[in-house]
């Protein structure tokens, strides 16, 4: 059938299985919005308050579902408002397709109204991007974008469509959903090399990240851990990859990781690394990172192998398929001495555990845990609350921790929580802080308009806590611009947006408020007052090593 470019965009999205898109209309994408009107029975559009909210929502949708998140915006400022969100998705390898309108092809390059070179701007933060100059290429470009977004290491793809291409007509024939590039196991000879190292190891440690979730290799990893009697830790991006209460799981690694997990990896003689990229937040000082360990690294992206930390064996391959081939070759063995050492690390962690009563961040997250369903997504913003959530929230199933890891985007949470709720149909939790929340709280309007069932747990300490923590530890308590002397009344603010809210300052009230929030069918905000001097612990100082780990707050502090 002959269709306009705008219709082809919408029809191709439907053809690729897209049910929900997030976005914001404008002059140069108005034709696509007309097509969305035409096809509204087949595809749902969620209008956010700001393009940034839309792109984070598409991201949250993708993280929670594993499908491509789709966002639309107009040219110029619409397109540039997507940039932070696209970069967030890029750093965390999230499949996304962003579609922007642009001025007529005849006006491109003339600095016309709301014209911006968005393909140029997003070049370093997309897996690939396209400028579509002819309507005849449009459908194939969108299909290719979906293929690229999902294949190999996923990532965001942007498509820039000038207005005249949206208006022009051409033949459109519906096609099947694109097949992603075949994922392959590593070569036998490389697997055998890895097996030799694994069989020779006396103190193996399994370290997984977001790549494990993308590969769906949870079962295989757990089988490997059982077979070789290894403890397991993960990067922040790996959280929810296996159940938090799994007996082999020591928790998150890194700057604010669990003590036992970090110490076990530091003392291991072999780190089996699955879908991780040894970010500086995990390794600390690279020269001192796990000096006695050999590293077997499996990643779908070859450029991650030996990028920051040299691996003894790097396998560019799909984790699941590789582990399936590797498992039968690995010898069963019990490692009593190593397990004893790991028990020791756990005991040390226990000794430093925060055992205070009252409304501490940890107790607040523990209170939240009681209300979580098996599939409740928890989104966060970025800062102390993010780390408290990462350390203490209890996950049962993968893709339920929705958090900006690589880019660390404050303001991510509101949009992402909305997207995650759309993806799962579940009541969704957003844990946020007063700093981050202040950045994108306009999306409360979206949550209310669409009645998105969010439980927003807002930690209010009146400061930018994470930066303040650094200022306390490393900048002689010079609290430069981290004390928010705002007078915001978050309950009144919520009410003004049209949602219910409560303010709590003790654990008992928090519990009651959570009960109310989880019973509500509508979005619900709980402002949780906490002390401004709460710390995230333990902490590996930036550029430090395990020798420098801070497990308790300095005594001269409140």
């Amino acid at each position, binding site marked *: 059938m002959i269709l306009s470019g705008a219709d082809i965009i919408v029809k191709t999205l439907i053809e690729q299985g897209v049910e929900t898109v997030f976005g914001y209309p404008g002059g140069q994408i108005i034709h696509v919005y007309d097509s969305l009107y035409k096809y509204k029975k087949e595809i749902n559009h969620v209008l956010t308050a700001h393009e940034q909210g839309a792109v984070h929502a598409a991201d949250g949708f993708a993280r929670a579902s594993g499908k491509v998140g789709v966002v639309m915006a107009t040219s110029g400022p619409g397109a540039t408002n997507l940039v932070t969100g696209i970069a967030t998705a890029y750093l965390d390898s999230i499949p996304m397709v962003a579609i922007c309108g642009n001025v007529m092809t005849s006006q491109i390059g003339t600095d016309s109204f709301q014209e911006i070179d968005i*393909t*140029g701007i997003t*070049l*370093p933060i997309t*897996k*690939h991007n396209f*400028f579509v100059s002819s309507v005849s290429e449009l459908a194939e470009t969108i299909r290719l974008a979906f293929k*690229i977004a999902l294949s190999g*290491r996923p990532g965001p793809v942007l498509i820039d469509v000038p207005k005249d291409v949206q208006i022009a007509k051409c033949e459109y024939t519906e096609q099947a959903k694109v097949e992603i590039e075949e994922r392959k196991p590593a070569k036998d000879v490389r697997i055998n090399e890895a097996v030799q190292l694994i069989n020779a190891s006396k103190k193996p440690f399994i370290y997984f990240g977001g790549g494990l979730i993308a590969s769906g290799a949870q079962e295989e990893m757990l089988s490997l851990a059982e077979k070789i009697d290894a403890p397991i830790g993960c990067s922040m991006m790996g959280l929810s990859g296996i159940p938090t209460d799994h007996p082999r799981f020591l928790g998150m690694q890194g700057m604010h990781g669990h003590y036992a997990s970090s110490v076990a990896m530091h003392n291991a003689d072999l780190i089996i690394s699955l879908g991780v990229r040894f970010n500086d937040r995990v390794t600390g000082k690279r020269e001192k990172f796990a000096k006695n360990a050999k590293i077997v690294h499996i990643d779908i*992206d*070859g*450029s991650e*192998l*030996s*990028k920051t930390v040299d691996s003894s064996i790097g396998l560019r391959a799909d984790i699941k398929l590789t582990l399936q081939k590797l498992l039968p070759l690995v010898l069963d063995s019990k490692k009593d001495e190593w397990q004893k050492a790991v028990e020791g690390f756990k005991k040390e962690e226990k000794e430093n555990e925060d055992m205070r009563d009252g409304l501490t961040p940890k107790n607040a997250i523990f209170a939240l845990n009681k209300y979580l369903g098996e599939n409740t997504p928890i989104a966060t913003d970025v800062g102390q609350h993010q780390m408290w959530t990462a350390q203490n929230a209890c996950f049962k199933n993968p893709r339920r921790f929705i958090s900006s890891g690589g880019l660390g985007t404050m303001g991510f949470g509101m949009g992402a929580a909305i997207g995650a709720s759309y993806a799962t149909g579940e009541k969704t939790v957003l844990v946020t802080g007063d700093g981050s929340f202040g950045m994108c709280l306009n999306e409360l309007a979206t949550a209310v308009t669409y009645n998105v069932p969010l439980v927003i747990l807002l930690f209010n300490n009146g400061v930018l806590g994470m930066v303040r923590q650094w200022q306390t530890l490393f900048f002689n308590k010079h609290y430069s611009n981290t004390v928010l002397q705002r007078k915001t009344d978050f309950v009144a603010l919520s009410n003004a947006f049209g949602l219910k809210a409560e303010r709590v300052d003790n654990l008992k009230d928090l519990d009651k408020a959570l009960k109310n929030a989880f019973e509500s069918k509508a979005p619900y905000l709980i402002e949780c007052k906490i002390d401004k001097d709460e710390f995230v612990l333990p902490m590996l100082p930036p550029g430090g090593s395990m020798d420098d780990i801070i497990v308790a707050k300095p005594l001269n502090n409140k």
Partner: protein
Amino acid sequence: MNKYTVAVLVKNQFGVLNRVTSMFRRRQFNINALTVSETESNDYSRITVMFFGEENKKQQLINQLYKLPDVCSIKELDSTNSVSSELLLIKMANEPTTRDDVLTAAKAFDAKTVDYSKASMVFELTGDSTRIDDFINLMRDYEILEICRTGIVSLEKGASTISKSGGIM
């Protein structure tokens, strides 16, 4: 530091060179020479990159290139498996006192005189990069007005081609 030459077959599309060089810039790969042109098929362009670095840096560069969807094939070339050449244009001052020496040197290198005026002479020289370097170094004793060199182009020896070997698509 080793010298590496990598040939990259890319889709002949608008903006591809920008994608490749943008990646070099943001990942801090320092490129010494880069040439690009259409190939036997106008669907593809061929980029030849020459740079100095360590083995792991080279591997990173290849790995990062491999991730660009417009990159079709990558081949590392060295002096044992390939032939390479580059072109130099050099403009010298035409001074009566140095004219004979300059012309003699050019002749010794088989450089072609492609322009001659009262005030200047332009020579053209093709050859491998070392030979070009040698010629330029020799000319430094006289007054060089301008230099333009193309950067290296390189082809594998024998019948194998980049699209048949090291292909990734």
